[in-house]
């Protein structure tokens, strides 16, 4: 039975992670530099696509509904490539999770990267853990307000840089930057920057581990995905317990384990948990506690790895005194292989499709009201809205004809039946869709419904063809 009155709501407990150096901290530095560099540099990379297309390497052109990624250009009707990429991202996360646990959470998640960045700023401005705690507890004074304003200003600058960079993915970056500073950019650009600046500031500066623990669905999903073969940060309690201070342990070496209860693992934890309580939802497996513990173990002259990346299988083996599995074997098990196969299968299929796709496309939609019109000479006319897609960044001449409909003659709504012919030539501008309303007349009687195909052929040297099945209908 509880004695303290039960609170339904809980105030956030401050987390002031201590600075630490070590292998995993350096890995995190590297990942942070790489991911932030990718985020900030990508929109400024250029890629020459000729005079008719933008020269930004990565561009999500929502206004014109085009997605550019280096040599790849995606049209809205090819959105399955983007869907495929998202599926790959999903399976990729599953793969990473089943192989190395919550590595995404610990190293690459933007929430982690930006929180880490904000915490570095915090340490730089306010000092390390103890100084931060002192400052937090201190009553509000001029100096405390000044320090808070200074820290929040730096955070705001970073937040503004973060939100500001986002919009450059959606328009030509140099142009948009000029427009942005001269006040001529679209309202949505300013609104986006404002919203993302606010979310970065709040999520990175104040919400931090609350996002991981309460807001993000991913830890829950990952919890379900982890199994006895997944790497998790593990406190080897069979080696550490019973924990006690160094002095006691030295006095009675047999009664105590390796853990000297120095709480360094708790002090460095960015989510404020105690890893010695076992795997938990708050653990993002950033491995900083491993660095902290290794450092302490080195100082007290005990082997490293009291806290270490370890699978549950290996933990069982180690407890029983058996040798752990080799790294390769623990990485390559059935689940990782299945995910890897799926992931590379989808990736391979997409690459194949990208390599073999045509950049010329025809689609035809038959008029439904009326379907067929009887002309005064007895011929039957059907009409179609034919769309020709030229997905290359240069204008091309295309020839539309029909196949499998003897006696058919074609004309468009720009000319009349006197100009009817067997094929229609048209110039489709670079990187765009030409719409042709095509009338198609066939003399004499025939079946109520006849299958045929529209064909399109680029008449230039490179060529390229496409066809679209259609029907010709007659009133009965």
């Amino acid at each position, binding site marked *: *039975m*509880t004695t303290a*009155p*039960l*609170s*339904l*709501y*809980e*105030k*956030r407990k401050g987390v002031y992670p201590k600075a630490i150096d070590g292998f995993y901290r350096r890995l995190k530095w590297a990942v942070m530099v790489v991911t932030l560099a990718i985020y900030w540099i990508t929109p400024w990379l250029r890629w020459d696509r000729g005079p008719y297309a933008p020269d930004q390497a990565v561009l999500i052109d929502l206004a014109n509904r085009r997605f550019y990624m280096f040599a790849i250009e995606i049209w809205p009707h090819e959105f399955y490539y983007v869907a495929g990429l998202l599926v790959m991202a999903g399976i990729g996360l599953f793969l990473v999770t089943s192989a190395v646990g919550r590595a995404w959470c610990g190293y690459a998640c933007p929430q982690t990267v930006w929180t880490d960045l904000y915490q570095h700023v915090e340490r730089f401005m306010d000092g390390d853990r103890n100084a931060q705690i002192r400052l937090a507890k201190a009553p509000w004074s001029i100096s405390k307000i000044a320090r808070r304003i200074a820290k929040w200003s730096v955070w705001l600058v970073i937040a503004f840089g973060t939100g500001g960079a986002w919009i450059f993915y959606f328009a030509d970056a140099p142009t948009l930057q000029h427009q942005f500073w001269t006040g001529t950019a679209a309202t949505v650009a300013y609104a986006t920057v404002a919203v993302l600046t606010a979310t970065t500031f709040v999520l990175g500066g104040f*919400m931090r581990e*609350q996002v991981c623990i*309460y807001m993000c669905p991913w830890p829950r999903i990952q919890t379900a995905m982890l199994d006895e073969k997944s790497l998790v940060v593990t406190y080897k309690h069979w080696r550490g317990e019973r924990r006690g201070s160094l002095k006691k342990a030295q006095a009675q070496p047999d009664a105590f384990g390796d853990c000297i209860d120095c709480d360094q693992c708790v002090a460095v934890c960015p989510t404020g948990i105690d890893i010695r309580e076992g795997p938990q939802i708050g653990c993002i497996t950033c491995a900083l506690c491993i660095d902290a513990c290794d450092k302490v173990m080195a100082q007290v002259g005990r082997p490293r790895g009291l806290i270490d990346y370890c699978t549950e299988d290996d933990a069982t083996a180690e407890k029983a005194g058996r040798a752990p599995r080799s790294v390769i074997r623990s990485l390559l098990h059935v689940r990782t292989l299945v995910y890897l196969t799926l992931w590379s299968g989808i990736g391979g299929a997409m690459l194949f499709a990208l390599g073999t796709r045509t950049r010329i496309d025809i689609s035809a939609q038959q*008029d*439904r*009201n*009326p379907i067929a*019109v*009887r*002309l*005064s*000479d*007895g011929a039957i*006319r059907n*009409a179609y809205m034919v769309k020709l897609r030229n997905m290359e960044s240069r204008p091309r001449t295309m020839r539309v004809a029909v196949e499998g409909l003897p006696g058919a003659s074609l004309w468009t*709504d720009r000319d*009349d*039946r006197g100009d009817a012919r067997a094929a229609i030539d048209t110039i489709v501008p670079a990187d765009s869709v030409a719409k042709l309303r095509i*009338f198609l007349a066939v003399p004499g009687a025939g079946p109520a419904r006849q299958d045929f195909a529209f064909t399109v052929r680029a008449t230039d040297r490179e060529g390229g063809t496409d066809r679209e099945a259609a029907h010709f209908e007659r009133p009965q």
Partner: protein
Amino acid sequence: MADPTRSKIDQPTGTPTMGHEWDGIEELDTPLPRWWLWTFYACILFSIGYVVAYPAWPLIDSYTTGMLGWSSRGDLAREMATQAEKVAPIHRAIAATPIDELPARPALMQAAVEGGRAAFKVHCVQCHGSGAAGSKGYPNLNDDDWLWGGDLATIEKTIVDGIRNPDHAETRISIMPAFGRDQLMTAQQVDDVVAHVRTISGQQKGDAASQRGATLFADNCAVCHGVAGEGNRQLGAPKLTDGIWLYGGDGESLHQTVWNSRQGVMPRWGDRLDAATVRMLAVYVHSLGGGEAAPR
């Protein structure tokens, strides 16, 4: 909600439970973060503001309108007014451009076709059908057969002045006699004329009846429909040799037509619609596939 004073503590986690148990499974009563509570309060505050500002509560026969006076119907009216304002210059330009000069101005022409498409759905579909394919007695506007002419200016005149409006001087008018009803022909003679018409339109082979009919046709019908049945657009007299029949080309329908005559009418839209709308309708009808070039 569980009574907090009676909560148990779950031993492994040290967290109080909700006090309920299902098959030995107990629900932990983990406290919500306080910021979540603030978010909840903020939502309540927002909803109060929303109720004050916007329509919210249903009443017996109305509803609370809110202080901003917003309504979705008002939004629509504003949008319609904005749109009308936006297209007004285009309509003025269309009204100011003679219809034969529209095709030379593609942007205006396209706007006219689209505007005509919209106006057609409001004013014309009742008789001509939503696809302008017509029905018995109402011409199909998609084909290349025109009673009064199919170039832009002629179509526009037909729409402006209408057909067979007896109270209007400019209307298109022609009266086919009711040959049977008015006893200008006997039933046998009507059948003979029908046989001739079906012969010249290629629906049956010539025989004695059609030969008798040919003479009757020359005497009674050729003055309007032409010696060979080629029709006369000045009089709105249909061509009788093609495959298109407004009232049907079978013997029975043709007998009815010759016996009783046909007198299709169309309102004069010039009195009801503004010049731009009529012009757009003419351009739209012309664009349906049967439009003809202006006569030179």
